[in-house]
Protein backbone atom coordinates (compact mmCIF):
# COMPACT_ATOMS: atom_id res chain seq x y z
CA UNK A 1 0.00 0.00 0.00
CA UNK A 2 2.86 2.36 0.81
CA UNK A 3 4.22 4.19 -2.21
CA UNK A 4 7.84 4.42 -1.15
CA UNK A 5 10.13 2.03 0.62
CA UNK A 6 13.45 1.74 2.38
CA UNK A 7 15.07 -1.64 1.90
CA UNK A 8 18.38 -3.45 2.09
CA UNK A 9 19.46 -4.48 -1.38
CA UNK A 10 22.20 -6.98 -2.07
CA UNK A 11 24.99 -6.05 -4.45
CA UNK A 12 25.03 -8.64 -7.24
CA UNK A 13 27.40 -6.86 -9.58
CA UNK A 14 29.90 -4.04 -9.43
CA UNK A 15 31.91 -3.68 -12.59
CA UNK A 16 33.88 -0.79 -14.01
CA UNK A 17 32.40 0.61 -17.24
CA UNK A 18 35.44 2.79 -17.74
CA UNK A 19 37.95 4.67 -15.62
CA UNK A 20 35.35 6.66 -13.66
CA UNK A 21 31.99 4.96 -14.18
CA UNK A 22 30.82 1.78 -12.52
CA UNK A 23 27.79 -0.38 -13.06
CA UNK A 24 26.25 -1.42 -9.78
CA UNK A 25 23.47 -3.97 -9.85
CA UNK A 26 21.37 -4.48 -6.75
CA UNK A 27 18.89 -7.18 -5.90
CA UNK A 28 15.77 -6.13 -4.02
CA UNK A 29 14.45 -8.08 -1.05
CA UNK A 30 10.88 -7.27 -2.10
CA UNK A 31 9.09 -7.14 -5.41
CA UNK A 32 10.18 -3.98 -7.21
CA UNK A 33 7.57 -1.42 -8.23
CA UNK A 34 7.49 -0.21 -11.82
CA UNK A 35 10.03 2.57 -12.26
CA UNK A 36 9.71 5.52 -14.60
CA UNK A 37 12.80 6.64 -16.51
CA UNK A 38 14.17 9.67 -14.69
CA UNK A 39 13.28 8.33 -11.27
CA UNK A 40 16.07 7.75 -8.80
CA UNK A 41 17.03 5.93 -5.63
CA UNK A 42 18.78 7.33 -2.56
CA UNK A 43 21.71 5.20 -1.49
CA UNK A 44 23.18 4.84 1.99
CA UNK A 45 26.95 4.66 1.59
CA UNK A 46 28.53 3.02 4.59
CA UNK A 47 32.08 2.83 5.68
CA UNK A 48 33.48 6.30 6.09
CA UNK A 49 33.24 8.86 8.82
CA UNK A 50 32.61 11.66 6.40
CA UNK A 51 29.49 10.50 4.63
CA UNK A 52 26.43 11.25 6.64
CA UNK A 53 23.66 11.62 4.08
CA UNK A 54 22.50 9.29 1.33
CA UNK A 55 23.48 9.91 -2.30
CA UNK A 56 20.94 10.00 -5.16
CA UNK A 57 21.46 7.97 -8.34
CA UNK A 58 19.21 7.58 -11.35
CA UNK A 59 17.78 4.24 -12.30
CA UNK A 60 19.64 2.85 -15.29
CA UNK A 61 18.12 -0.58 -15.80
CA UNK A 62 15.49 -2.64 -14.05
CA UNK A 63 14.97 -6.35 -14.36
CA UNK A 64 11.56 -7.06 -12.87
CA UNK A 65 12.01 -10.82 -13.26
CA UNK A 66 15.33 -10.90 -11.45
CA UNK A 67 14.10 -8.18 -9.13
CA UNK A 68 17.28 -6.16 -9.69
CA UNK A 69 18.02 -2.59 -10.55
CA UNK A 70 21.23 -1.08 -11.89
CA UNK A 71 22.91 2.26 -11.45
CA UNK A 72 25.74 3.93 -13.30
CA UNK A 73 27.91 5.55 -10.67
CA UNK A 74 30.48 8.10 -11.65
CA UNK A 75 33.27 8.87 -9.20
CA UNK A 76 32.86 12.51 -8.26
CA UNK A 77 33.75 12.81 -4.58
CA UNK A 78 33.96 10.84 -1.38
CA UNK A 79 30.60 9.11 -1.47
CA UNK A 80 30.55 8.01 -5.07
CA UNK A 81 34.16 6.82 -4.70
CA UNK A 82 33.27 4.71 -1.70
CA UNK A 83 30.18 3.32 -3.41
CA UNK A 84 32.25 2.07 -6.34
CA UNK A 85 34.32 0.07 -3.86
CA UNK A 86 31.33 -1.95 -2.64
CA UNK A 87 31.69 -5.70 -3.16
CA UNK A 88 29.33 -8.31 -4.42
CA UNK A 89 27.35 -9.79 -1.57
CA UNK A 90 27.43 -6.61 0.48
CA UNK A 91 24.23 -4.96 1.64
CA UNK A 92 23.19 -1.52 0.52
CA UNK A 93 20.15 0.37 1.75
CA UNK A 94 18.02 2.20 -0.81
CA UNK A 95 15.08 4.59 -0.56
CA UNK A 96 12.89 4.21 -3.66
CA UNK A 97 11.25 5.02 -5.99
CA UNK A 98 11.94 8.75 -5.89
CA UNK A 99 11.13 11.62 -8.23
CA UNK A 100 8.77 12.07 -11.12
CA UNK A 101 10.30 10.72 -14.33
CA UNK A 102 10.24 11.90 -17.93
CA UNK A 103 7.07 12.38 -19.95
CA UNK A 104 6.78 9.26 -22.07
CA UNK A 105 6.60 10.26 -25.75
CA UNK A 106 3.50 9.53 -27.80
CA UNK A 107 3.39 6.97 -30.55
CA UNK A 108 5.01 8.11 -33.75
CA UNK A 109 6.93 10.97 -32.20
CA UNK A 110 10.59 11.57 -32.96
CA UNK A 111 12.78 12.10 -29.95
CA UNK A 112 16.34 13.14 -29.19
CA UNK A 113 17.80 11.85 -25.93
CA UNK A 114 21.00 13.56 -24.82
CA UNK A 115 23.15 12.15 -22.06
CA UNK A 116 26.38 13.61 -20.72
CA UNK A 117 28.68 11.67 -18.41
CA UNK A 118 26.73 9.50 -15.96
CA UNK A 119 23.64 11.30 -17.29
CA UNK A 120 23.46 8.54 -19.89
CA UNK A 121 21.78 6.29 -17.31
CA UNK A 122 18.23 7.70 -17.37
CA UNK A 123 18.49 8.37 -21.12
CA UNK A 124 19.18 4.73 -21.89
CA UNK A 125 16.36 3.71 -19.56
CA UNK A 126 14.05 6.13 -21.38
CA UNK A 127 15.15 4.85 -24.80
CA UNK A 128 14.34 1.33 -23.70
CA UNK A 129 10.84 1.99 -22.42
CA UNK A 130 9.86 4.83 -24.76
CA UNK A 131 7.69 2.45 -26.80
CA UNK A 132 8.83 4.21 -29.97
CA UNK A 133 10.16 2.59 -33.10
CA UNK A 134 13.96 2.59 -32.98
CA UNK A 135 14.21 4.81 -36.05
CA UNK A 136 12.37 7.53 -34.18
CA UNK A 137 14.75 7.46 -31.23
CA UNK A 138 18.08 9.24 -31.40
CA UNK A 139 20.55 8.90 -28.56
CA UNK A 140 23.29 11.51 -28.42
CA UNK A 141 25.94 10.71 -25.84
CA UNK A 142 28.66 13.10 -24.90
CA UNK A 143 31.77 12.88 -22.77
CA UNK A 144 35.16 14.52 -22.51
CA UNK A 145 37.10 11.68 -24.08
CA UNK A 146 36.50 8.21 -25.43
CA UNK A 147 37.78 6.83 -22.12
CA UNK A 148 34.87 8.45 -20.31
CA UNK A 149 32.29 6.97 -22.66
CA UNK A 150 30.29 4.01 -21.49
CA UNK A 151 29.80 1.11 -23.89
CA UNK A 152 26.18 1.42 -25.05
CA UNK A 153 26.28 -0.80 -28.11
CA UNK A 154 23.38 -2.91 -26.91
CA UNK A 155 21.20 0.20 -26.93
CA UNK A 156 21.55 0.30 -30.72
CA UNK A 157 18.39 -1.80 -30.85
CA UNK A 158 16.36 0.97 -29.24
CA UNK A 159 17.56 3.85 -31.43
CA UNK A 160 20.31 5.49 -33.43
CA UNK A 161 23.48 6.14 -31.48
CA UNK A 162 25.47 9.36 -31.86
CA UNK A 163 28.61 10.29 -29.98
CA UNK A 164 30.59 13.36 -29.24
CA UNK A 165 33.74 13.97 -27.25
CA UNK A 166 35.47 17.19 -26.35
CA UNK A 167 38.75 15.92 -27.78
CA UNK A 168 37.26 14.19 -30.79
CA UNK A 169 38.44 10.75 -29.66
CA UNK A 170 34.97 9.32 -30.33
CA UNK A 171 32.28 10.67 -32.67
CA UNK A 172 32.09 14.40 -33.28
CA UNK A 173 34.55 16.70 -31.62
CA UNK A 174 33.07 19.26 -29.27
CA UNK A 175 30.07 19.56 -26.97
CA UNK A 176 26.82 17.71 -27.63
CA UNK A 177 25.24 20.95 -28.79
CA UNK A 178 27.84 21.12 -31.55
CA UNK A 179 26.94 17.67 -32.85
CA UNK A 180 25.13 17.85 -36.24
CA UNK A 181 22.15 15.87 -34.98
CA UNK A 182 21.60 18.66 -32.51
CA UNK A 183 22.97 21.69 -34.31
CA UNK A 184 21.39 21.05 -37.68
CA UNK A 185 18.42 18.80 -37.00
CA UNK A 186 16.88 19.96 -33.76
CA UNK A 187 13.69 21.07 -35.54
CA UNK A 188 13.12 17.47 -36.67
CA UNK A 189 12.33 16.31 -33.16
CA UNK A 190 9.06 16.41 -31.29
CA UNK A 191 10.78 16.06 -27.96
CA UNK A 192 14.24 16.54 -26.59
CA UNK A 193 15.30 15.02 -23.28
CA UNK A 194 18.59 15.67 -21.51
CA UNK A 195 20.52 14.63 -18.46
CA UNK A 196 24.08 15.62 -17.66
CA UNK A 197 26.16 18.49 -16.36
CA UNK A 198 24.37 21.73 -15.65
CA UNK A 199 26.17 23.67 -18.38
CA UNK A 200 25.26 21.05 -20.94
CA UNK A 201 21.59 21.09 -20.01
CA UNK A 202 21.47 24.87 -20.00
CA UNK A 203 23.00 25.00 -23.48
CA UNK A 204 20.48 22.45 -24.73
CA UNK A 205 17.60 24.26 -23.06
CA UNK A 206 18.57 27.53 -24.67
CA UNK A 207 18.46 26.07 -28.17
CA UNK A 208 15.32 24.06 -27.54
CA UNK A 209 13.57 27.11 -26.19
CA UNK A 210 14.63 29.17 -29.19
CA UNK A 211 13.39 26.40 -31.48
CA UNK A 212 10.22 26.07 -29.40
CA UNK A 213 10.66 22.34 -28.97
CA UNK A 214 9.36 20.34 -26.02
CA UNK A 215 12.35 19.72 -23.79
CA UNK A 216 12.74 18.03 -20.42
CA UNK A 217 15.92 17.98 -18.36
CA UNK A 218 16.81 16.03 -15.26
CA UNK A 219 18.43 18.17 -12.55
CA UNK A 220 20.97 17.01 -10.00
CA UNK A 221 20.58 19.51 -7.17
CA UNK A 222 22.15 18.66 -3.83
CA UNK A 223 19.71 16.69 -1.69
CA UNK A 224 19.43 15.89 1.98
CA UNK A 225 16.28 13.74 2.14
CA UNK A 226 15.28 12.89 -1.42
CA UNK A 227 11.57 12.61 -0.64
CA UNK A 228 10.34 16.13 -0.19
CA UNK A 229 10.65 16.94 3.50
CA UNK A 230 13.82 19.01 3.88
CA UNK A 231 13.34 21.65 1.16
CA UNK A 232 17.08 21.69 0.49
CA UNK A 233 17.04 20.69 -3.18
CA UNK A 234 14.88 23.52 -4.47
CA UNK A 235 15.01 24.96 -7.96
CA UNK A 236 13.45 28.36 -8.69
CA UNK A 237 10.70 27.86 -11.26
CA UNK A 238 7.83 29.84 -12.67
CA UNK A 239 5.71 28.04 -10.08
CA UNK A 240 7.97 29.14 -7.22
CA UNK A 241 10.75 27.19 -5.52
CA UNK A 242 10.10 23.53 -6.30
CA UNK A 243 11.74 20.43 -4.85
CA UNK A 244 13.92 18.65 -7.36
CA UNK A 245 13.41 15.40 -5.46
CA UNK A 246 9.61 15.33 -5.68
CA UNK A 247 8.53 17.90 -8.28
CA UNK A 248 11.56 16.79 -10.31
CA UNK A 249 14.22 15.73 -10.99
CA UNK A 250 12.67 16.08 -14.44
CA UNK A 251 11.50 19.56 -15.39
CA UNK A 252 10.13 21.00 -18.54
CA UNK A 253 12.54 23.78 -19.48
CA UNK A 254 9.63 26.21 -19.78
CA UNK A 255 9.14 25.91 -16.04
CA UNK A 256 12.75 26.73 -15.23
CA UNK A 257 14.18 30.21 -14.79
CA UNK A 258 17.10 29.33 -17.06
Amino acid at each position, binding site marked *: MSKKAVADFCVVENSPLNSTNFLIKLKAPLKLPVFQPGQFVNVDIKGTDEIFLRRPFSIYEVDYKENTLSLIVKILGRGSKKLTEIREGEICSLVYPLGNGFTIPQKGEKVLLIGGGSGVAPMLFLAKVSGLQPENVNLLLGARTIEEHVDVKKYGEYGNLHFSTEDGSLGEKGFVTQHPIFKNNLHMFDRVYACGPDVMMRAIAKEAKAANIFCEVSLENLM*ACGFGVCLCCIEPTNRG*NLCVCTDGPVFNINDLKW
Partner: protein
Amino acid sequence: MVDLTVKIHNIEFKNPVMTASGTSGFAEELMDFYDVSQLGALFLKGTTLKNRDGNDYPRMAETASGMLNAVGLQNKGIDYFIENIYPRIKNYNTPLIVNVNGSTVEEYIEVTEKVNELDRIPAIELNISCPNVKEGGMAFGVSCVGAEVVTKAVREVYDKTLIVKLSPNVTDITEIAKAVEAQGADSVSLVNTFLAMAIDAEKRTPLLSTITGGLSGPAIKPIALRMVWQVYNAVKIPVIGMGGIMNATDAIEFMLAGATAIQVGTAIFKDPFIPVQIIEGIKEYLERHNLKSAKDLIGALQL
Protein backbone atom coordinates in the same frame (compact mmCIF):
# COMPACT_ATOMS: atom_id res chain seq x y z
CA MET B 1 2.65 -4.54 28.36
CA VAL B 2 4.72 -1.43 28.86
CA ASP B 3 3.04 1.94 28.91
CA LEU B 4 4.58 4.28 26.36
CA THR B 5 2.32 7.26 26.97
CA VAL B 6 3.70 10.56 28.18
CA LYS B 7 1.93 13.76 29.10
CA ILE B 8 2.80 17.35 28.32
CA HIS B 9 0.51 19.96 29.84
CA ASN B 10 -2.98 18.55 29.20
CA ILE B 11 -2.12 16.39 26.22
CA GLU B 12 -1.49 12.69 26.54
CA PHE B 13 0.73 11.38 23.75
CA LYS B 14 0.64 7.71 22.78
CA ASN B 15 4.42 7.61 22.93
CA PRO B 16 7.31 10.05 23.34
CA VAL B 17 8.60 9.87 19.76
CA MET B 18 7.78 12.86 17.59
CA THR B 19 9.00 14.39 14.35
CA ALA B 20 11.00 17.62 14.49
CA SER B 21 9.67 20.65 12.69
CA GLY B 22 11.07 21.17 9.22
CA THR B 23 12.25 17.63 8.87
CA SER B 24 9.05 15.90 7.85
CA GLY B 25 7.11 18.55 6.00
CA PHE B 26 3.43 18.28 6.82
CA ALA B 27 3.76 14.55 7.44
CA GLU B 28 2.14 13.70 4.11
CA GLU B 29 5.48 12.70 2.64
CA LEU B 30 5.99 10.22 5.49
CA MET B 31 2.59 8.71 4.69
CA ASP B 32 4.22 7.43 1.48
CA PHE B 33 6.26 5.16 3.76
CA TYR B 34 3.98 4.32 6.70
CA ASP B 35 1.01 5.48 8.72
CA VAL B 36 2.17 8.44 10.80
CA SER B 37 -0.57 7.83 13.36
CA GLN B 38 1.89 5.51 15.06
CA LEU B 39 4.04 8.46 16.10
CA GLY B 40 3.67 10.36 19.36
CA ALA B 41 3.05 13.67 17.59
CA LEU B 42 3.89 15.51 14.39
CA PHE B 43 5.62 18.87 14.59
CA LEU B 44 4.83 20.47 11.24
CA LYS B 45 7.06 22.56 9.01
CA GLY B 46 7.70 26.10 10.29
CA THR B 47 4.87 28.39 9.23
CA THR B 48 4.76 32.17 8.88
CA LEU B 49 2.02 34.68 8.24
CA LYS B 50 2.77 35.14 4.55
CA ASN B 51 4.34 33.00 1.86
CA ARG B 52 8.13 32.80 2.13
CA ASP B 53 10.35 31.58 -0.68
CA GLY B 54 13.16 30.75 1.70
CA ASN B 55 16.82 31.26 0.91
CA ASP B 56 18.63 30.72 -2.35
CA TYR B 57 20.17 27.43 -3.42
CA PRO B 58 22.50 25.89 -2.18
CA ARG B 59 20.80 25.41 1.15
CA MET B 60 22.56 22.31 2.34
CA ALA B 61 26.05 21.08 3.15
CA GLU B 62 27.15 17.82 4.66
CA THR B 63 29.53 17.95 7.62
CA ALA B 64 31.13 15.33 9.88
CA SER B 65 28.22 13.41 11.42
CA GLY B 66 25.82 16.17 10.53
CA MET B 67 24.59 18.70 8.05
CA LEU B 68 24.03 22.41 7.64
CA ASN B 69 20.77 23.78 6.33
CA ALA B 70 19.73 27.23 5.31
CA VAL B 71 16.18 26.60 4.19
CA GLY B 72 15.00 29.86 5.72
CA LEU B 73 11.46 28.87 6.56
CA GLN B 74 10.20 28.35 3.04
CA ASN B 75 6.44 27.90 3.40
CA LYS B 76 3.24 29.08 1.76
CA GLY B 77 1.94 30.98 4.79
CA ILE B 78 -0.63 30.15 7.42
CA ASP B 79 -3.69 30.83 5.26
CA TYR B 80 -2.51 28.41 2.62
CA PHE B 81 -1.88 25.87 5.36
CA ILE B 82 -5.38 26.30 6.76
CA GLU B 83 -7.12 26.12 3.40
CA ASN B 84 -5.09 23.51 1.58
CA ILE B 85 -2.97 21.40 3.88
CA TYR B 86 -4.90 21.22 7.13
CA PRO B 87 -8.00 19.63 5.55
CA ARG B 88 -5.84 16.86 4.10
CA ILE B 89 -3.95 16.02 7.28
CA LYS B 90 -6.35 16.87 10.07
CA ASN B 91 -7.56 13.33 10.51
CA TYR B 92 -4.18 11.78 11.15
CA ASN B 93 -4.71 10.06 14.46
CA THR B 94 -1.94 11.77 16.42
CA PRO B 95 -1.51 15.35 17.66
CA LEU B 96 -0.51 17.83 14.96
CA ILE B 97 1.53 20.72 16.24
CA VAL B 98 2.13 23.87 14.24
CA ASN B 99 5.60 25.44 14.41
CA VAL B 100 4.84 29.18 14.58
CA ASN B 101 7.27 31.75 13.21
CA GLY B 102 7.36 35.48 12.69
CA SER B 103 9.65 38.41 11.98
CA THR B 104 7.76 40.56 14.47
CA VAL B 105 5.80 39.90 17.63
CA GLU B 106 2.64 40.88 15.75
CA GLU B 107 3.26 38.19 13.17
CA TYR B 108 3.70 35.55 15.86
CA ILE B 109 0.38 36.69 17.36
CA GLU B 110 -1.46 36.67 14.05
CA VAL B 111 -0.28 33.22 13.10
CA THR B 112 -1.13 31.92 16.56
CA GLU B 113 -4.61 33.40 16.45
CA LYS B 114 -5.28 31.69 13.15
CA VAL B 115 -3.97 28.35 14.41
CA ASN B 116 -6.12 28.76 17.50
CA GLU B 117 -9.20 28.33 15.32
CA LEU B 118 -8.12 24.87 14.20
CA ASP B 119 -9.81 22.10 16.19
CA ARG B 120 -7.25 19.46 15.47
CA ILE B 121 -4.19 21.46 16.47
CA PRO B 122 -3.92 21.02 20.26
CA ALA B 123 -0.61 22.84 20.61
CA ILE B 124 1.83 25.18 18.96
CA GLU B 125 5.58 25.21 19.04
CA LEU B 126 6.80 28.79 19.11
CA ASN B 127 10.00 28.89 17.10
CA ILE B 128 12.17 31.66 18.51
CA SER B 129 15.33 29.92 17.42
CA CYS B 130 15.56 29.68 13.63
CA PRO B 131 19.10 30.70 12.68
CA ASN B 132 18.29 31.00 8.96
CA VAL B 133 16.13 34.10 8.70
CA LYS B 134 17.29 37.67 8.69
CA GLU B 135 14.55 39.03 10.90
CA GLY B 136 12.86 37.53 13.94
CA GLY B 137 13.65 33.88 14.49
CA MET B 138 16.73 33.39 16.57
CA ALA B 139 16.96 37.09 17.34
CA PHE B 140 14.11 36.61 19.83
CA GLY B 141 15.51 33.37 21.20
CA VAL B 142 18.97 34.48 22.23
CA SER B 143 17.99 37.00 24.87
CA CYS B 144 15.72 36.61 27.87
CA VAL B 145 13.92 39.82 27.01
CA GLY B 146 13.26 38.76 23.43
CA ALA B 147 12.06 35.34 24.51
CA GLU B 148 9.83 36.84 27.17
CA VAL B 149 8.23 39.37 24.86
CA VAL B 150 7.17 36.79 22.27
CA THR B 151 6.06 34.21 24.80
CA LYS B 152 4.02 36.71 26.78
CA ALA B 153 2.32 38.11 23.68
CA VAL B 154 1.44 34.69 22.31
CA ARG B 155 0.33 33.36 25.68
CA GLU B 156 -2.22 36.16 25.88
CA VAL B 157 -3.96 35.00 22.73
CA TYR B 158 -3.52 31.25 23.07
CA ASP B 159 -5.12 28.90 25.60
CA LYS B 160 -4.04 25.55 24.30
CA THR B 161 -0.64 23.99 24.90
CA LEU B 162 2.20 26.42 24.28
CA ILE B 163 5.61 24.90 23.62
CA VAL B 164 8.53 27.30 23.14
CA LYS B 165 11.46 26.08 21.04
CA LEU B 166 14.80 27.26 22.34
CA SER B 167 17.99 28.18 20.56
CA PRO B 168 21.23 26.48 21.61
CA ASN B 169 23.22 29.52 20.46
CA VAL B 170 23.24 31.07 23.91
CA THR B 171 25.55 31.33 26.88
CA ASP B 172 23.05 29.97 29.38
CA ILE B 173 20.02 28.18 28.01
CA THR B 174 18.50 27.77 31.48
CA GLU B 175 18.01 31.54 31.71
CA ILE B 176 15.94 31.56 28.54
CA ALA B 177 14.01 28.48 29.63
CA LYS B 178 13.18 30.06 32.98
CA ALA B 179 12.16 33.29 31.27
CA VAL B 180 9.65 31.58 28.97
CA GLU B 181 8.38 29.40 31.81
CA ALA B 182 7.70 32.55 33.81
CA GLN B 183 5.71 33.92 30.89
CA GLY B 184 3.45 30.90 30.85
CA ALA B 185 5.01 28.45 28.43
CA ASP B 186 3.61 24.96 29.06
CA SER B 187 6.72 23.22 27.77
CA VAL B 188 10.05 23.94 26.13
CA SER B 189 11.55 22.06 23.22
CA LEU B 190 15.26 22.10 22.51
CA VAL B 191 17.50 22.33 20.67
CA ASN B 192 17.14 24.07 17.35
CA THR B 193 20.18 24.07 15.08
CA PHE B 194 23.58 25.58 15.87
CA LEU B 195 24.72 28.53 13.80
CA ALA B 196 27.56 27.15 11.72
CA MET B 197 29.43 27.40 8.46
CA ALA B 198 31.03 25.32 5.74
CA ILE B 199 33.53 26.32 3.09
CA ASP B 200 34.60 24.88 -0.24
CA ALA B 201 38.37 25.11 0.13
CA GLU B 202 39.01 24.60 -3.58
CA LYS B 203 36.60 27.28 -4.74
CA ARG B 204 37.22 29.46 -1.68
CA THR B 205 33.52 30.14 -1.28
CA PRO B 206 30.93 29.32 1.39
CA LEU B 207 28.95 26.15 0.67
CA LEU B 208 25.65 27.82 1.56
CA SER B 209 24.10 30.76 -0.26
CA THR B 210 23.58 32.39 3.14
CA ILE B 211 27.20 31.83 4.27
CA THR B 212 26.06 30.49 7.64
CA GLY B 213 23.38 27.91 8.35
CA GLY B 214 22.11 25.60 11.06
CA LEU B 215 24.00 22.50 12.15
CA SER B 216 21.98 19.39 13.02
CA GLY B 217 22.59 15.67 13.33
CA PRO B 218 24.65 13.40 15.61
CA ALA B 219 27.49 15.93 15.75
CA ILE B 220 25.43 18.16 18.06
CA LYS B 221 24.00 15.42 20.25
CA PRO B 222 26.42 15.79 23.18
CA ILE B 223 25.76 19.53 23.41
CA ALA B 224 22.00 19.12 23.02
CA LEU B 225 21.96 16.42 25.70
CA ARG B 226 23.81 18.71 28.10
CA MET B 227 21.30 21.48 27.46
CA VAL B 228 18.30 19.22 27.99
CA TRP B 229 19.80 18.06 31.27
CA GLN B 230 20.47 21.64 32.39
CA VAL B 231 17.00 22.85 31.44
CA TYR B 232 15.33 19.83 33.06
CA ASN B 233 17.06 20.79 36.28
CA ALA B 234 16.10 24.45 35.95
CA VAL B 235 12.38 24.46 35.10
CA LYS B 236 9.26 22.63 36.21
CA ILE B 237 7.52 22.41 32.84
CA PRO B 238 8.17 19.37 30.69
CA VAL B 239 11.09 19.38 28.29
CA ILE B 240 11.01 18.00 24.75
CA GLY B 241 14.51 17.00 23.71
CA MET B 242 16.15 16.74 20.32
CA GLY B 243 19.45 17.11 18.50
CA GLY B 244 21.10 14.28 16.63
CA ILE B 245 18.82 11.47 17.76
CA MET B 246 19.43 8.55 15.38
CA ASN B 247 18.18 5.55 17.33
CA ALA B 248 16.41 4.34 20.45
CA THR B 249 19.57 4.52 22.56
CA ASP B 250 19.96 8.20 21.73
CA ALA B 251 16.28 8.80 22.51
CA ILE B 252 16.59 7.05 25.85
CA GLU B 253 19.64 9.13 26.71
CA PHE B 254 17.62 12.31 26.16
CA MET B 255 14.81 10.99 28.33
CA LEU B 256 17.25 9.99 31.09
CA ALA B 257 18.63 13.53 30.89
CA GLY B 258 15.13 14.85 31.53
CA ALA B 259 13.15 14.90 28.29
CA THR B 260 9.49 13.93 28.57
CA ALA B 261 9.38 13.40 24.83
CA ILE B 262 11.87 13.57 21.99
CA GLN B 263 11.84 14.77 18.41
CA VAL B 264 13.60 13.10 15.52
CA GLY B 265 14.90 15.51 12.90
CA THR B 266 17.79 14.99 10.52
CA ALA B 267 17.68 11.21 11.07
CA ILE B 268 14.49 11.15 9.01
CA PHE B 269 16.49 12.24 5.95
CA LYS B 270 18.68 9.22 6.42
CA ASP B 271 15.78 6.85 6.96
CA PRO B 272 12.15 7.91 7.39
CA PHE B 273 11.46 4.75 9.41
CA ILE B 274 13.77 5.78 12.25
CA PRO B 275 10.98 7.29 14.42
CA VAL B 276 9.04 4.02 14.18
CA GLN B 277 12.17 2.02 15.01
CA ILE B 278 12.77 4.24 18.03
CA ILE B 279 9.31 3.50 19.39
CA GLU B 280 10.06 -0.21 19.11
CA GLY B 281 13.48 0.25 20.66
CA ILE B 282 12.13 2.12 23.67
CA LYS B 283 9.55 -0.60 24.20
CA GLU B 284 12.24 -3.26 24.04
CA TYR B 285 14.45 -1.31 26.47
CA LEU B 286 11.66 -0.88 28.99
CA GLU B 287 10.85 -4.58 28.86
CA ARG B 288 14.48 -5.60 29.19
CA HIS B 289 14.96 -3.30 32.17
CA ASN B 290 11.69 -4.29 33.80
CA LEU B 291 10.32 -0.79 33.63
CA LYS B 292 6.57 -0.35 33.33
CA SER B 293 6.35 3.04 31.73
CA ALA B 294 8.25 5.37 29.45
CA LYS B 295 7.67 7.94 32.17
CA ASP B 296 10.11 6.00 34.35
CA LEU B 297 12.91 7.12 32.06
CA ILE B 298 12.31 10.86 32.41
CA GLY B 299 15.21 12.38 34.32
CA ALA B 300 16.19 8.95 35.64
CA LEU B 301 19.89 9.58 35.22
CA GLN B 302 21.79 8.35 38.27
CA LEU B 303 24.52 10.71 39.37
